[in-house]
């Protein structure tokens, strides 16, 4: 059996595989520990390739004895080669991992499908979450599909599209008058009072395992080869660190050979506690009060900040921050060169790629992957008034006059 225990990332203490997220000894975060020594690389690869078209093709690396039955799945999203984007930035090989192509249009479907399966296995009948929006969408949808009650807690100032795309599933939407960090604190307190599975609180060690599948997919879709560099947005830092963790596991098992890629984290300047700590050489993050259009990344007190800093430094990468104007430009750049319309978080990632290219951090020969975590239709306000619409009368003459075109021959 590959899944062994929950293990503290700080002091190494181990615990049974239950709804627990904090080490009793030192308050450190718990992570799922596995024993992969029985996995034969060739056999594992064949099993993956013959597996379902969802994250469950990687079930040997997920925290279950056998793949659970789920009502709504996630994963196997496109990895698109983006030659026009690369050319615009003076790079040779850029790939876009488009995780907007998930059931609720963000990478959060990956973590929620794992968390919900584990919550049901542990006997919970209600799930909940603290969310900046995308997680709310995913929890509401997966709970609805599974026929489980759900409560989603969001900051009251969230984008309307994300609120609407949550409530439609019949969940209880609770808008908290405060920041995401207030919502998160409240959910931590509530998780002690209620017998609910809060996907990113008491079952977070399982939830975050879902993010590893993004790393697995990138490697599988590149033909079981590693990219040289991956650019990932950072909110709590969980996705950033788990993508690398997944790749480390595959290197350990022998499914792929080489080094963990250079890991670049991307934050919005209006909420950049990890990028600031990186620039100042600190090992921990000082919390900030977010003020950015990238609300899905607006976590001022990032739980995995110290691990994100460690990973960026160890892999030879960095954590950068981009302004709201750069985020809008990033959304446009990705849309205009790849046909992929991303939300503000993807604007942060694309703008960070542009910044790295401009700064000369990326060797022209590198194979670079950027992780696009969400869908542009969820944050439409970010592109409002960034282009003009030509309004005409329904005549050929009006068309030609207004657009300044010569008469067609």
């Amino acid at each position: 059996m590959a899944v062994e225990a929950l293990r503290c990332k700080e002091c190494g203490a181990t615990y049974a595989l239950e709804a627990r997220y904090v080490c009793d000894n030192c308050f450190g975060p718990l992570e799922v520990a596995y024993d992969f020594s029985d996995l034969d690389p060739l056999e594992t690869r064949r099993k993956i390739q013959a597996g379902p078209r969802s994250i469950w093709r990687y079930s040997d690396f997920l925290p279950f004895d056998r793949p659970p039955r789920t009502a709504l799945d996630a994963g196997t999203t496109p990895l698109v080669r983006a030659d026009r984007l690369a050319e615009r930035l003076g790079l040779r090989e850029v790939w876009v991992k488009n995780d907007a192509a998930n059931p609720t249009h963000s990478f959060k479907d990956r973590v929620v499908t794992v968390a919900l399966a584990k919550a049901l296995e542990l006997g919970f009948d209600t799930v909940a979450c603290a969310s900046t929006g995308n997680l709310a969408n995913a929890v509401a949808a997966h709970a609805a599909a599974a026929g489980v009650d759900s409560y989603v807690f969001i900051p009251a100032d969230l984008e309307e599209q994300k609120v609407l795309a949550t409530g439609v599933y019949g969940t209880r939407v609770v808008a908290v008058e405060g920041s995401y960090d207030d919502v998160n604190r409240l959910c931590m307190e509530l998780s002690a009072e209620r017998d609910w599975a809060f996907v990113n609180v008491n079952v977070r060690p399982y939830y975050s395992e879902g993010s590893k599948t993004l790393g697995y997919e990138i490697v599988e879709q590149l033909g079981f080869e590693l990219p040289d560099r991956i650019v990932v947005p950072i909110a709590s830092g969980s996705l950033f660190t788990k993508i690398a963790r997944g790749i480390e596991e595959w290197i350990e098992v022998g499914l792929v050979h080489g080094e963990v890629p250079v890991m670049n984290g991307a934050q919005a300047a209006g909420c950049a506690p990890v990028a600031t700590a990186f620039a100042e050489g600190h090992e921990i993050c000082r919390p900030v009060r977010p003020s950015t259009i990238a609300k899905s990344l607006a976590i001022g007190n990032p739980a995995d900040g110290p691990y994100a800093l460690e990973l960026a430094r160890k892999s030879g990468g960095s954590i950068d921050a981009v302004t709201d104007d750069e985020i809008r430009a990033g959304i446009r750049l990705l849309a205009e060169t790849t046909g992929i319309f991303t939300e503000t978080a993807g604007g942060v990632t694309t703008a960070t790629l542009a910044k790295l290219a401009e700064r000369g951090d990326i060797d022209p020969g590198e194979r670079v992957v950027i992780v696009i975590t969400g869908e542009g239709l969820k944050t439409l306000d970010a592109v409002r008034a960034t282009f003009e619409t030509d309004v005409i009368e329904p005549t050929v003459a009006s068309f030609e006059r207004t657009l300044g075109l010569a008469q067609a021959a």
Partner: protein
Amino acid sequence: MAVTVKIPTQLRNVTGGEAETQVEDASTVGEVLDGLYERYDGLRERIAEDGDLRRFVNVYVQGEDIRFLDGLDTPVEDGDEVTILPAVAGG
């Protein structure tokens, strides 16, 4: 004067199961914690290291993270609520 302290589930085995307690005569968060350390054996090692809080421990006064205030020197007043929570959730 008394300050109310909310104890997270993870620490209730050293507080004899208490979820909430009162600390008298403390004027800063540091003094509140010292009062708790005196009362509960083993609490200090759980949340503090080298005189500072461990990196995955968050403390709030009236819902505000003390890192936005004066850290352990943050003043507390009669009737304030101090909350201790793990820092490893969310995202």
